[in-house]
């Protein structure tokens, strides 16, 4: 199905004004606006980094000028659903590193943890503030042929993309000023403020006016633009590992031209294993020796907490609906994509018998690596995948092949439907906050489902539109954001 158009090609009510404008201005004017937007992106220095690109390591951010619209009424449910999901996931992480009630109660299998590459034994018994571990997360949503939005995966380690949500909006405002006058579009700019507030709340008790630092692996990281962007917008320090040192008092300091200054909260954009060479990989040049010590002593807040990735695993994913029921006593507001867990014989046999109709996913790869799409793979590739599944069933899940929704996109040939997904960002602390929309990624190649910008994917601005003056749209929620209270931790915190 298409996000903006009905099956007969007429605009959905929400897209009326947009489609009408596109018809009125015509393709040439639209291409001219696209060209101006591309130029904006170039001169504003909105870039992403690709590794093996001789002369220029940062590339202009790919942006499709036609926005993707979502109705505010639907979005309000999504917001609550995502906040709910992250509360449950945080209960789970806190439980796993402490009491393990969910295992004792036979809701979650114990042996899954032993083989999880993202489980950090060093984090056992730690009680981060508010019982929250995954403070900043990005969940990927897809709309399938039935019109329903599903959660495809949760990114709880160092999800990136939020800076492009804000920058896409800045560019879109210039491209379609007339539409911003006509539509009621929820603003996205509050994110960095909310993030700042969240990070401040993680400071050790009694630290007034805390010093916040964004820890980046450096300029060669693909998300460096974002690290710098977030530091700028929050007025935070952007630091590299070499800028920080942990003192004998187990506090973290940064090296300034006036000497050492205490750091209270670190928003780290470095993977767990590189955070602290004393605790994890001794060869890491990116991290800070002693950081784990400082964190465990409660002398510094770290977001996301080390070890949060234990719930960011394509197998653990299958249990999230159970977690929501178990920890919150609620029904999930956004469904999971049905997932077969190969560790269970019955589900595995089903997968092996239906390889051609399924997407096969290894548990711990990210960025789309190792994924086999049944109806596009050769017989040989399927046989290799089947062997891998039999050899290591814990590490594989399978899902039906989804017919991802499309939206009109400006390409060489004109305006054509292209497949897309959506990554909203969720902040979890004492309260929850969900971005109004998120990053819409679009596969620019006809028929392709690959939306990653490193592989030729583009992006769109995402408009959450409130149709209050439109009689046919039901709108129970009109708040611009969901604020749900975080109940006290169920762990031993």
């Amino acid at each position, binding site marked *: 199905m298409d996000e903006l158009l009905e099956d007969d090609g007429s605009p959905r009510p929400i897209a009326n004004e947009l489609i009408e404008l596109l018809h009125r201005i015509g393709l040439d004017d639209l291409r001219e606006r696209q060209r101006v937007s591309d130029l904006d992106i170039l001169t504003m220095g909105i870039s992403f980094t690709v590794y093996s690109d001789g002369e220029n390591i940062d590339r202009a951010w790919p942006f499709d000028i036609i926005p993707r619209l979502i109705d505010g009424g639907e979005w309000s449910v999504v917001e609550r659903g995502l906040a709910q999901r992250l509360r449950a996931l945080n209960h789970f992480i806190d439980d796993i590193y402490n009491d393990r009630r969910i295992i004792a109660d036979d809701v979650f299998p114990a042996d899954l943890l032993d083989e999880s590459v993202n489980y950090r034994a060093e984090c056992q018994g730690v009680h981060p503030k508010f019982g929250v571990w995954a403070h900043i997360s990005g969940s990927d949503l897809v709309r399938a042929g039935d019109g329903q939005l599903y959660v495809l995966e949760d990114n709880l380690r160092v999800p990136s993309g939020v800076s492009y949500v804000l920058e896409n909006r800045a560019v879109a405002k210039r491209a379609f000023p007339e539409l911003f006058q006509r539509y009621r579009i929820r603003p996205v700019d509050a994110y960095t403020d909310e993030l700042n507030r969240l990070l401040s709340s993680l400071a050790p008790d009694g630290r007034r006016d805390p010093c916040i630092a964004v820890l980046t692996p450096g300029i060669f990281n693909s998300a460096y633009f974002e690290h*710098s962007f977030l530091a700028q917008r929050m007025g935070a320090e952007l630091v590299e590992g*070499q800028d920080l040192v942990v003192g004998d008092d187990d506090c973290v300091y940064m*090296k300034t031209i006036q000497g050492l200054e205490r750091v209270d909260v670190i928003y780290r954009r470095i993977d767990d294993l590189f955070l602290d060479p004393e605790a994890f990989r001794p060869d890491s040049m990116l991290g800070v020796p002693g950081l784990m010590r400082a964190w465990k002593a409660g002398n510094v807040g770290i977001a996301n907490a080390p070890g949060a990735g234990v719930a960011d695993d394509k197998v653990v994913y299958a249990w999230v609906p159970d977690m929501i029921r178990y920890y919150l006593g609620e029904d999930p507001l956004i469904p999971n994509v049905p997932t077969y867990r190969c560790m269970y014989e019955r589900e595995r046999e089903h997968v092996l018998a239906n390889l051609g109709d399924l997407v096969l996913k290894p548990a711990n790869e990210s960025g789309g690596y190792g994924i086999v799409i049944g109806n596009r793979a050769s017989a040989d590739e399927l046989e290799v995948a089947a062997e891998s599944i039999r050899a290591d069933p814990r590490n594989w899940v399978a899902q039906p092949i989804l017919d991802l929704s499309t939206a009109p996109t400006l390409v060489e040939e004109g305006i054509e439907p292209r497949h897309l997904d959506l990554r909203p960002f969720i902040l979890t602390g004492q309260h929850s906050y969900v971005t109004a929309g998120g990053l819409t990624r679009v596969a620019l190649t006809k028929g392709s489902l690959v939306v990653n910008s490193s592989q030729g994917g583009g992006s769109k601005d995402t408009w959450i539109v409130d149709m209050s003056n439109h009689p046919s749209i039901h709108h129970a929620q009109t708040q611009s954001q969901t604020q749900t209270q975080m109940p006290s931790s169920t762990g031993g915190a």
Partner: protein
Amino acid sequence: MPLLSRVADRTYWAARYVERAEDSARVLRAYGDVLADLPTSSVRWSPLVSISGSDVRLPAVSGSDETQVAQFLIADRDHPNSIVNAIERCRENLRTCREVLPREAWHTVNDLSIYVRGAAVTSVERRRRDRFLARVIDESRRLDGVLNSTMSRDEAFEMWRLGRYIERADMTTRVLGVRAATLLALPPGATDEFAEVQWMGVLRSLSALQMYQRATNGHIEGPSVVRFLLFDHRFPRSVAGCLAEMRTSILRLPAYSTVLGAVEAADRQLRRSRPAADDGVALDAAMDAVQLALARLNDVMHEHYVVH
């Protein structure tokens, strides 16, 4: 919040690189201008290579070496101080300290870098060169304008100024060391016919002609040009003027006494060069000594603000 040492270092170097590009553009532009007034047979461009601080020897060519030198100074990717490389390094340094600068400053640098990358190669040719060099100078000035009008006078701002002024002082000593020394060292009478034109070129390459004329009632004469460019601290590109600006910035930074000491040392070295103002060989040596003192100042700042 005190400035991160690494950010201080990168801000400083970003300023040095953009000043380097601007200064090279000025020198190259003025040189082309002067040469238009001289008989073509006597025209050599190679002194510009030494001014750029490079010990590279370009292969000898017959006839004019203009294109070769312009290519080297503008577009040569293997020459670390070429304009295209200096702008690129400025951008790379600023890219890692965007959070301390006004957004507009980054846009200016980014814009300039996109322009230079695209236009450098085709701007070697004389017909297009002047427009290119003018744009580099203008954008570099615009960047200072943006910072002056929108940036808080914080530590990052002072690091930026320090980078600007030390690079500028260094460039002024190089221009004087190479060009003025050559002119002064010629046997008396040898360049008489064109001496004034050439000295005007020296002044122009530091955008100093008009201010010099106002300060001296117009007559252009070697030793007085040298003294103006070294000691007239009212002129912002004179070495004394640059040192005075650096002093102002250093006093606004924490624990300044060591660094201030290094500025005073450079200033003493500068004053020692006063007698050399009318002797070409002595001037060349004196400028080398000032350059060394500036290099020491650079090292002291590095130890004091960056390494600890």
